[in-house]
């Protein structure tokens, strides 16, 4: 009689353990999700570059070689938590940025890259290819 009782108790204990374990696992699913998970970094990068290029600002900054300001506008335009590294190539494919344009190196679980072709509103119409790497 006491053995049967022990077996019943063990059965119930295992059953309860299984249910509790399942509940614990289920509670581990994130309720609030970071929007950066849903947003593709390459899409975000392209949209930022298009926005900056809309009024010619990006082209003027790149063409003047003002890398501090290029870095500043990218820092302002990209969300916090996204790291970036920008490489600027001229029409012949040579790198023209004389210093690293980045907010501290590429960090994050996901690294993506986007390329942007740029024509500058300047007398001789210089053309550039921007390679923006993003981490988040």
């Amino acid at each position, binding site marked *: 009689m006491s053995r*049967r009782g022990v*077996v*019943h108790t*063990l*059965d*119930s204990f*295992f*059953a*309860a353990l*299984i*249910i509790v*374990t*399942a*509940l614990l*696992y*289920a509670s581990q*699913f*994130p309720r609030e*999700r970071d929007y950066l998970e*849903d*947003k*593709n970094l*390459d*899409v975000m990068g*392209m*949209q930022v*570059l*298009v926005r900056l*290029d*809309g009024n*010619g600002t990006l*082209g003027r900054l790149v063409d003047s070689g003002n890398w501090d300001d290029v870095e500043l506008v990218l820092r302002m335009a990209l969300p916090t938590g996204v790291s970036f590294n920008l490489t600027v190539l001229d*029409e012949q494919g040579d790198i023209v940025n004389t210093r690293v344009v980045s907010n501290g190196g590429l960090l994050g679980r996901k690294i993506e890259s*986007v*390329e*942007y*072709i*740029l*024509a*500058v*509103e*300047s*007398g*001789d*119409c210089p*053309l550039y*290819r921007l390679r923006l790497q993003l981490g988040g």
Partner: protein
Amino acid sequence: MKGMRGRRRRGQILIIAAFGMAIVLLSTQAYIYKVSRGHVSSGYDSLGDYVLSVKLGSEHAVTASLINVSNGGAAANLGDNLDRWEAFVAGDYRFGRCDLNSTLASQPPYSQGIWLDWGTDGVGVSSACSDFTMNMSGRGVEVDLSYEVNVTTSVLVSGSYSDLGGDSAVTVIFKLYNERSPTLENSTTLAYLKSGSWEDPTVLGDYSALDYGNGTYLYTFTDTIPESQIPVRVQAYDLRGVFVQAEATLLRDEGTP
């Protein structure tokens, strides 16, 4: 014995039922999590932004050419710059082959895509215009797009003068437009014709310039000008760097005695 087996089965059923409930719980939670994830069509978004970037680049290339030509460059620069831009775009295979073709506006008043009319009737125009067709194919993408890029800076000059007993009090109104919308100047040079030579009114004591902040500018000055009609010339750069010029002949204000 039967009773013992039945109890064991009841115990097994209890555990199996617990497993079943656990699976249902976990799969429900996983399903809710999956459904909550927004569907992100990154490829489509990127393609739209890419097409937009090519269109923006075309506009910048036309604007750059107009800056060049309006500042004394050859009209052929527009075609040369657009050829370079087309080749640059063609070298980008992100979504497959991309063919960009430009056709310079050739209908009058345009020639080689350029229209410069710095007239003496109070109107000045610097304009560049080109049609573009963009075809993308490959990698599951088919895009056929046509668009026109017209970059125009125009200026309207008007005014009058009143006779102040030998001196002429001149009023000049100057309006600047980008694509027919009022815009601000970057710099402006005003001159008036006196005894056959262009004079700078800023050296006059009572010269004043008023910026209305909406693309309209008012200049006033007084000088002794023998002619009964006073030609004035406005040379302006808009914020893009496009140069435009217009001349107008000012007549005596009929309201003055």
